Structures are given as C-alpha cells and as structure tokens.
C-alpha cells in the first residue's frame, strides 16, 4: 500500500530536493568531463570547467548546494488513481519550506507586490507542481531546480521570422534555437542544456520546453526528424565558440532536447528554455511495497 499522509510525502520530497540541489546527475558530469577534454590546455575555458568539476565534487561530498541559486523547484508527480493531488502539492510545498530552513535551498521566493522575500522559499506559483494520474501502482517524482540566470535567457519566437530567414518549418525552428543560444552567450552559465518546443501556445510551449530538460543527456529522441535536429543543433551550437562561461571555447552546449505540441493555424511558437550546466535533476519511484528507486 502506498502511504497517503502528507507528512510521509513531505519527508520523501525533502530527500528528493536534497539530492537535486547537491548531487549532479552522472550523465551531466560525464558531458562536462568530455567538454573539458575538448578545450585547449591552459585556456580560460579549460580552467572554468576544472573549477566546475571540482565544485561538483565538493557539493556532492558535503551534501551542500551545487549553486547558491537553487532556482525554481519544478516537479512532475505521477500517482495512481485515488490519491490526492492536493495532498501531493501541499506536501511538496512543505518540503520546499523545510529544505529552505535546512539551507538545502536558498530562500528564493520574492513577493513582487510587497517587494519582499517571503523567507521560506514559497510564494504564489513557487514551487511549480504538476500532478498526473497514471495506471501504475507507484508514485514517480521527477524534479529540477532551474536557476534564475538561465531562466532569464530563455526565449520565445514566432514564425515566420524574417531577420533569421526562418519560415514555418523545421528549418525555421532550428534557426530560432541557434539564435537563442547565440543571444544567451555565457549569461545562462554555459555550457548549457537546451530544452525546446515548437507549437503549443505561449505558456504550454515554455512548459514543454522545460519538461524536455528532464531527459538524460545521452538519450536519443525516438522521433527521427527531431533526433536529427537535436544532433545538428548540438554540432552547430558548439561551433559558435561561446564556450564555458562565455569565455570562448569549444563547449557551448552539453545537449539539445526538442519536443512539440499542436498549434493553432495562426500561431507558430518556438519556445526555448536554457538550463545552466548545473542541471539539477532528480527523480524517484516509490513502489507500493515501500521500495524507493532513484531515477537518473
């Protein structure tokens, strides 16, 4: 039987948040190591990545935040029929408050009307909790911490875009994504991971672009056209020469992940979310027999 009490899930969620904030997923660490090998010895890019790799080890060893900007906690929870989405939402919000009190998260929510930090990490819309019912007898939680610096360099385009010679087709989509990577420079803490969505409306497009960031860097898109696009943009973005931190270099992005949604005849949005190198994903599966499996 799956537990149904808010207290139980709050405790579980604090553990997931702790992992997200302090332990970088192995595929991201591996991509950073490969990037380091591509950079010229002694270059600013190489030194930046050396510091990044040392930081990841320190954070993991001490279970302390990889980055001080612990970002917006975004979480997707799948649960069996009959469990309460209100309970899960409220448990996750409470977990954010507890994690903030334990310095696993920074008090990172500002009320813009009062112009005051709420002090506990929560505010209207923060954290962002998505709950969805599914057929399995298990609860699966996947979350990310998305920092403000990288969120600020996200971009949304409407096609056609004459400046980029981008029409309403996949070639046009590609052009927008590359332009967004150029415009971000090092400001989103390059090397970044790109989540993109074409189609949708302004809000669903951005939401899907973020959901793409839950994917492992070494996975492949099952849709051949999108897989080809991901590979091509990855190659080209790394020719831009922006490099780690925007210092110049061969490693500008670590991965490109693309999804799509239906669109209206009048609209053709391309939504691009930029995730910093500190791609703090974490996931866990809670089975009915009480076992917990960490997901990468």
């Amino acid at each position: 039987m799956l537990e149904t009490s808010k207290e139980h899930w709050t405790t579980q969620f604090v553990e997931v948040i702790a992992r997200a904030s302090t332990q970088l997923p192995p595929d991201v660490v591996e991509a950073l190591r490969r990037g380091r090998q591509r950079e010229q010895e002694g270059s600013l890019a190489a030194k930046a990545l050396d510091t990044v790799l040392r930081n990841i080890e320190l954070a993991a060893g001490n279970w302390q935040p990889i980055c001080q900007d612990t970002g917006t906690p975004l979480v997707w929870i799948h649960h069996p029929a009959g469990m309460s989405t209100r309970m899960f939402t409220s448990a996750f919000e409470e977990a954010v408050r507890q994690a903030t009190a334990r310095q696993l998260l920074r008090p990172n929510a500002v009320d813009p009307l009062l112009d005051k930090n709420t002090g506990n990490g929560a505010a209207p819309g923060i954290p962002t909790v998505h709950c969805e019912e599914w057929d399995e007898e298990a609860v699966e939680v996947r979350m990310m911490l998305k920092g403000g610096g990288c969120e600020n360099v996200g971009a949304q385009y409407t096609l056609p875009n004459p400046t980029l010679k981008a029409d309403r087709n996949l070639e046009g989509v590609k052009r927008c994504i590359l332009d967004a990577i150029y415009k971000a420079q090092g400001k989103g803490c390059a090397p970044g991971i790109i989540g993109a969505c074409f189609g949708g409306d302004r809000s669903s497009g951005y939401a899907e672009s973020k959901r793409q960031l839950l994917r492992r860097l070494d996975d492949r898109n099952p849709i051949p056209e999108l897989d080809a696009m991901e590979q091509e943009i990855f190659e080209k973005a790394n020719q831009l020469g922006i490099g780690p931190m925007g210092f110049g270099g061969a490693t500008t992005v670590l991965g490109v992940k693309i999804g799509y949604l239906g669109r209206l005849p009048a609209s053709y949005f391309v939504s691009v979310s930029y995730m910093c190198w500190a791609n703090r994903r974490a996931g866990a599966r809670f089975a009915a027999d009480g076992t917990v499996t960490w997901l990468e």
Partner: protein
Amino acid sequence: MKLHLPCDEATIRSLKVGDFVELSGRMITGRDAAHHWLVKELRQEVLPLMRGSVIYHVGPVVKKHADGTYTFVAAGPTTSAREEPYQADVIGRYGLRGVIGKGGMGAKTLAGLREHGAVYFHAIGGAAQVLAQAVKRVETVFQLEEFGVPEALWVIEVEDFPVVVTMDSHGGSLHAEVDAASRGKLAELLGLSA
C-alpha cells in the same frame, strides 16, 4: 597573481583581460536591490567599507549560528547584466576598484571602468562551493531585514578568491570579443549577412 583588497588605482590599471587573480581581504556583496539602494542616495554606513575594494554580485545561501554569527554555505556569482544601468555610478560614487560577477557587463560599465580605474572580475558561475570556501568570515550585514538573505549587503573577508579579469580599465572586454565572433559564426551558419 595575488591581490589584496582594498587596493590602489595603479594596481588595478595594471590588470588586463585574461589575467587570473586571487583576491584576499574585505569585500561587500550586493545585487539588484542593493544597487538600487546604493544609487538612490549616498549610503555613508557602507562607503568606508567599499572604497578601494570590490562589490560581489552574489545572493548567497547563509547559515546563522546560535551565537548570532553567519557562514556562507554556497556563494557563486549572479548574472551582472542586470546592474548595467547602475554599476558605473556605484563605482564612481563609492570609489570601488572592481566588480565580481558573471556574464560580463555592457558599454556603460566598460566606460565607467576606464574613467574610474576599475575592472570586472569574472567568477565561475555555479561554482558555489569552491567560492564559499574562499569566504573565511562574515563581518557584518546591511539591509538584511529589508532585502532578505540573497539581496542583503554582506561584508565578507575572503582568501584567495579565484577570478579572471574579463573587462579591464583600458576598454578591453572579452565579452564584446566573444559576442562579435559568435555573431559572425551564427550569420555564417544561417547564411545571413553579419
């Protein structure tokens, strides 16, 4: 090279884009709310702490101990571009010799660095643990209640805090160089006129 804060103008003018520097001594932190506060009027209480030193764009994670003292738990730089409208004025009015941040700053700040004799030091974004380890002590804090932990002005003592000069006092900017080169490359990849 190693540099002790506060420092004089000649030392700062000797720095060039690409120099690695390890900073030691006293500095102050400040980001969005702090810059707004600093330009609104001259804040006498922080002026002597800032003159000849640097301001660090950071919103740290901070632990408060039972005896009332503080420790920085995580403290990497935040994006500096948001302070572009205010930075040159803050440098001039408070006698700063530099700024620490990430992502670089624009033309107005670059002109301010040249005019007042200051540089932009780039710290590694996201390296919150490496950089928190270089923060040896929290001396005091201003505007904590008003601005909250991330946005308060923390006066800290650092030791061998690692940074790279990416904008110097002679008009050099690595950010402008990389932007121009990557803009050219994008135009080439997309078949656009640069």
